[in-house]
């Protein structure tokens, strides 16, 4: 559905994306992770046709994407976007006018669930509620590709948990390609199915969350006991403190000798190690 081939995007002197090749074929919830400035937003804007690539091909649904022919099937609204300052219900109606496939029933249901006052004007809503509304409009669009950029910015814990429910419900009712970009890594792990890690303009990792669940773990022990065990394993990070070493692994599980301790690696820690958080600590 979404296809990037050797895509590069330059902004003045920086390369936001560097020869990125990416293929998203199935209807799944993809989680896009990356540090600030890694190229996440650039990637998403390219899919939506909000900007043009400097080099390479960007295709959605088989057709090339450009800033004039913004793909019909992609819905991307940045959560911090300005909206018409009208009543919430009016805003939803306007969204319906612009898009026949807008699922008004779903939108209304979600308004109720989140206790969003329909009669309030957009500017009267709190920042969190504004973000929620924009996200809701995106999800209700039923477009084949939905992009959510930092959808839970400013949400309290309860709203976040409700959002993840909303996301999974929406996906169950209308399976499609949903890409979520967020910094709240461990939380999205419960809803997303596939993980894409981007770092410094390059795709560092792409696989299923299940894969990470099964293959990401850490081994801790006395440094000398650990070294022989690590040979042949894909080590993504290491920490040595006080004579002990913790090695972070992304590989099949192996038999651990009893003098070593092993722990499963959460998605956030996996991510931190993948982007080089623990390669230099001694």
């Amino acid at each position: 559905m979404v296809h990037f081939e050797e895509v590069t995007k330059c902004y003045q002197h920086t390369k936001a994306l560097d020869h990125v090749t990416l293929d998203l074929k199935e209807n799944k919830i993809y989680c896009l992770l990356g540090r600030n400035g890694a190229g996440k937003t650039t990637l998403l804007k390219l899919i939506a046709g909000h900007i043009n690539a400097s080099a390479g091909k960007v295709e959605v649904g088989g057709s090339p994407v450009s800033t004039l022919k913004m793909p019909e099937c992609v819905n991307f609204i940045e959560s911090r976007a300005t909206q018409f300052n009208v009543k919430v219900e009016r805003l939803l109606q306007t969204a319906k006018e612009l898009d026949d496939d807008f699922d008004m029933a779903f939108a209304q249901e979600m308004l109720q669930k989140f206790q969003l006052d329909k009669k309030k004007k957009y500017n009267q809503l709190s920042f969190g509620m504004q973000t929620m509304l924009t996200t809701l409009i995106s999800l209700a669009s039923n477009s084949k590709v939905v992009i959510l950029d930092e959808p839970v910015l400013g949400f309290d814990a309860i709203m976040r948990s409700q959002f993840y429910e909303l996301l999974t419900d929406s996906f169950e009712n209308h399976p499609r390609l949903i890409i979520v970009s967020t910094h709240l890594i461990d939380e999205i792990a419960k809803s997303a199915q596939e993980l894409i890690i981007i770092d410094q303009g390059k795709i560092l990792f792409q696989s299923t969350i299940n894969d990470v669940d099964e293959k990401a773990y850490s081994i801790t022990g006395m440094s000398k006991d650990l070294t022989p065990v690590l040979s042949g394993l894909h080590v993504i990070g290491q920490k040595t403190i006080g004579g002990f070493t913790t090695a972070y692994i992304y590989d099949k599980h192996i038999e651990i000798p009893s003098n070593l301790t092993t722990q499963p690696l959460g998605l956030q820690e996996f991510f931190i190690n993948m982007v080089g958080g623990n390669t230099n600590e001694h």
Partner: protein
Amino acid sequence: MSINFNKAWAISKINFRHLKAAYIITGCLLLVGIANLILIMTAANITNGIVDPGNYAYAAAIFAPIFIPAINFKKIMHLNGKKTDFYWGALFNYVIIAAVVSFFEILLYIVTKNTCSSYGHVLDIVQAFGWFSHGIVPAFFQQFFFILLLEIFIHTLTAMQTFWFGWVTDVALVAVISVFTPIPVLRSALVWFFYMIIFNPTVMIQIISCIVLSAFLYALYLLVLKKQRI
């Protein structure tokens, strides 16, 4: 580029709903203009020039093409509107506004002339441009196409402001007016330009000049739209 009439029209409607500022400005000016008229009539003031309030209707044709690209555009994009639909939708807006403004302008002129001409000379844009010389109906159309050109010009210029070439154009326009005017050869070029789009005694030539320039400018806007980042 195909036109999706439904979507384009949906955007036009949305634009009309969100031009409060333009409506207010125009409304205020009209009220002021009409109040002025009433003042003149009741006070039986003989003055040199009475401004036809119809002129103020132009405010709508000036402010709408500023607010539509400057404010409404991105908000429509934020609700998943498509650029192509916006392109045509805005054009529909301008056609309708041009028709309405032209109509009311002439209507108010006629009313003003019939009620106030005894108090002084009525100042009116259509009169000044000489469009009444062929009758009211041709005047309506001449004004309509001129207003449309004006709107498209303002719209395109506003849309360009976020780019470097927008500012370059601003400077260039100011330069053209200030530099061309004193120099006789260039001044006659300028005069010819306005002759074609406004003062030409042949109605069809004036109208066609406006249409050609409008088409050119709106095609230029297409290029700007292509470049527009959201």
